């Protein structure tokens, strides 16, 4: 996909170079059309393609852990402990392994992905211009919402038939009882104890 986009960009650069070196060629009608494609249509398509590629790339696990402060969070996905919720989801492919962070942390609302990108830009600003936070102190603004869990689990048989879940379903849906911080599934990214944790090594 990136290969096709790069070919398109190179073609656009070649066409634009013609008009940079010899702008007089646009006197001919045929070249006017070429100029319209080379300086208008193709660059616009390259912009759309580039934005699409960058947005898709920003949803990958590899991209998320490419930030220094996120490295321990990436490592915590390999903790060999079934009570460790993110690790259990990642290792058992309950979320796509190549989009593990995005699957649980994306805001599944209409402007959610846009808000997430803005948050990402804010973190880049903090990393390079302001003071980068200590990885262990990073907290989600507003806490982890149940909607992130219910996006997949709601409607799943083993979730809804669980008597504990069934008894508090309304409270879970309204976010009054947190899935993570009410004592049920409270081991998320345990960064503070990561150095003592046993890590899972996938078979190559």
């Amino acid at each position, binding site marked *: 996909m990136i290969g096709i986009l790069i070919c398109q960009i190179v073609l656009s650069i070649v066409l634009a*170079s013609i008009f940079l070196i010899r702008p007089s060629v646009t006197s001919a009608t045929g070249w006017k059309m070429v100029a319209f494609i080379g300086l208008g249509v193709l660059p616009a398509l390259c912009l759309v393609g580039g934005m699409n590629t960058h947005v898709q*790339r920003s949803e990958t696990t590899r991209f998320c852990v490419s930030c220094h402060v996120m490295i321990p969070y990436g490592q915590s996905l390999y903790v060999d402990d079934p009570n460790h919720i993110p690790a259990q989801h990642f290792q058992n492919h309950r979320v796509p392994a190549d989009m593990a962070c995005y699957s649980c942390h994306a805001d599944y609302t209409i402007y959610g992905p846009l808000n997430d990108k803005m948050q990402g830009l804010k973190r*880049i600003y903090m*990393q390079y211009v302001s003071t980068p936070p200590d990885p262990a102190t990073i907290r989600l603004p507003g806490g982890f919402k149940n909607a992130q869990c219910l996006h997949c689990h709601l409607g799943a048989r083993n979730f809804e038939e669980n008597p504990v879940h069934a008894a508090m379903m309304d409270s879970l849906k309204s976010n009054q009882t947190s899935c993570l911080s009410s004592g049920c599934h409270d081991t998320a990214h345990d960064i503070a104890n990561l150095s003592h944790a046993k890590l899972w090594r996938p078979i190559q």
Partner: protein
Amino acid sequence: MKLSEIGIRRLLQVSSALVIVGLALEILSLLWFHPLSFVLFAFVAASLIGLGILVYLVSLVFAGVPSVENRN
């Protein structure tokens, strides 16, 4: 050669230069796997390409305006 024609050609050259630099930066941002690559694309490359397209469209507007001699 009319003065306006020279101006349009100059605008075409400026437009081409902006588009070329913007696209070259876009290739760089696509090949560079780093959080800053998105910033490079969104704030630098996209702005240059957008500006290049805008300058080209402005040159089209100038090309579409009939000269004073033609109007008379």
